[in-house]
């Protein structure tokens, strides 16, 4: 896995799960209300970006089903659409 801490990963590159966890943390921190005002504004902006990231990931719910095609030795050569009904 990566050695970067979550704070170092750009929000746009975060996995859904990581973005979710970060968002939860941001909300908790804001709700506790012990953050300096300018920090809380930055925190809110980060939260908004994380929420957008999560929504984008959820919107990208894309179904595509393909079957691997094999050569005579059983090695993968490519994909073909699969209609499994």
């Amino acid at each position: 896995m990566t050695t970067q801490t979550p704070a170092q990963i750009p929000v746009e590159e975060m996995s859904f799960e990581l973005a979710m966890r970060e968002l939860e943390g941001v909300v908790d921190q804001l709700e506790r209300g012990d953050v300096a005002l300018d920090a809380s504004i930055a925190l809110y902006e980060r939260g908004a970006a994380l929420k957008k990231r999560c929504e984008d990931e959820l919107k990208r719910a894309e179904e595509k089903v393909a079957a691997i095609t094999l050569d005579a030795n059983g090695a993968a050569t490519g994909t073909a659409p699969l209609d499994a009904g």
Partner: protein
Amino acid sequence: MSDLFDDPAPGQNTPEFTVSEISGEVKRTLEGTFGRIRVKGEVGRVFKARSGHLYYDVKDDRSVLACTTWKGQVSGLSVVPEEGLEVVVTGRLTAFGAQSKYNMNVEEVAVAGQGALMALLEKRKKQLEAEGLFDAARKQPLPYLPRFIGVVTSPSGAVIRDILHRLRDRFPRKVMVWPVAVQGANCAAEVARAIDGFNQFTPGGALPRPDLIIVARGGGSVEDLWGFNEEVVARAAAASQIPLISAVGHETDTTLIDFVSDMRAPTPTAAAELAVPVRLDLLAWTGEQGARLSRAASQTIDQRRQRLRDLSRALPKPDTLLETPRQRLDRTADRLPQALIKGVQNRKVQLAETAASLRPSSLRQLVKGRSEKLDSISARLTLRPVLREITTQKDRLGALTQRLETAQNARVDRQRQQLDAAGRQLEILSYRATLARGYAVVRDGDQLVTSKVAAANATSLEIEFADGSYQAASKG
């Protein structure tokens, strides 16, 4: 004598064969008499030749039957014979004339009953467990939301349909199906190859590497599911770097792959549920987080606004803040002129005190003292001691000079006397003194003449007396 070699006698009816004839006859008899048969026994030693042919023994407590399965037949076996396995082999008896041996050519191997099959499975399980392949520490966590899911199953049938339906309901994802036979002889090899194949996709390669693998099969008999009990499948699943969910058979069926997979799903549908979260739940959760976020943000500002209001209320009026300092200023300002006057007076008094002791007479006194001291020192300064010293030294020099002359004269006199004494001594010791007493010295030229012979031979004789030499005539 005639007994020593074979001599066919008339009337003898024992049939005669060549070795090849009898070998062929035995082979024919064996094959004709028994035909296709089934033999039950325990597999003994198994040897797979490099040619691909399989040689093994099937035995019971007393006898052993040699079996062969040719290379081309091996792939048709539903069970590959393993030492210790109770089997029923199907095939034909035949003979191998070149070694005078008979054996059975086996086309089909079946496990002799469920019990034997289970015993074999137990044995494999123990072995893999001993190798640590079942360890909980080896299990990889499943990704929360995989992007590509690789499914190893039959491309047709209810299983893939069920998985895709459930995925669609929960969270549609990209799915790649690696088609395999899910039962029969090729099942194990194909499934193992598929797991390995997915792992060989490189991230960013031509085919996207799945971040989750599901190995699935519907329910069936123990024999139908047997491929998933094969060691090659279990090892491929254990070696998979991609997290793997196994979903083979119904909930009550447990196959070897279930022990090594990272997660076991009771059914293929359940595998889809384990694979992805529910999208609608997540959308709702995200919405809720968004609401909490803006609520928390506005609350933060409200709280601070309130606090600001509270604090500003508690802030004192500017006038009251200045009152005390102003009073102090007034008081101090009053004292300022007086303080200046008093300061000057103080200094004036101090000056007067100091100036009083400053007078010329004290300075004069000081000069007088110094001048007296100078006079007394000057009086002591004179040349007399120096002159006295010069006289003393001059006297010493005179005395020394006289002593030197006296000593020198005495030394010269003494030496002269010594010389005279020595001269007198010399005179006394010289031969000349002897001459005066009457002796003479005779010489021939420079040679002394001391004998009569020498005098007779001399050319001239010179005789020295005390008062001079006398030339004697030579003998001639």
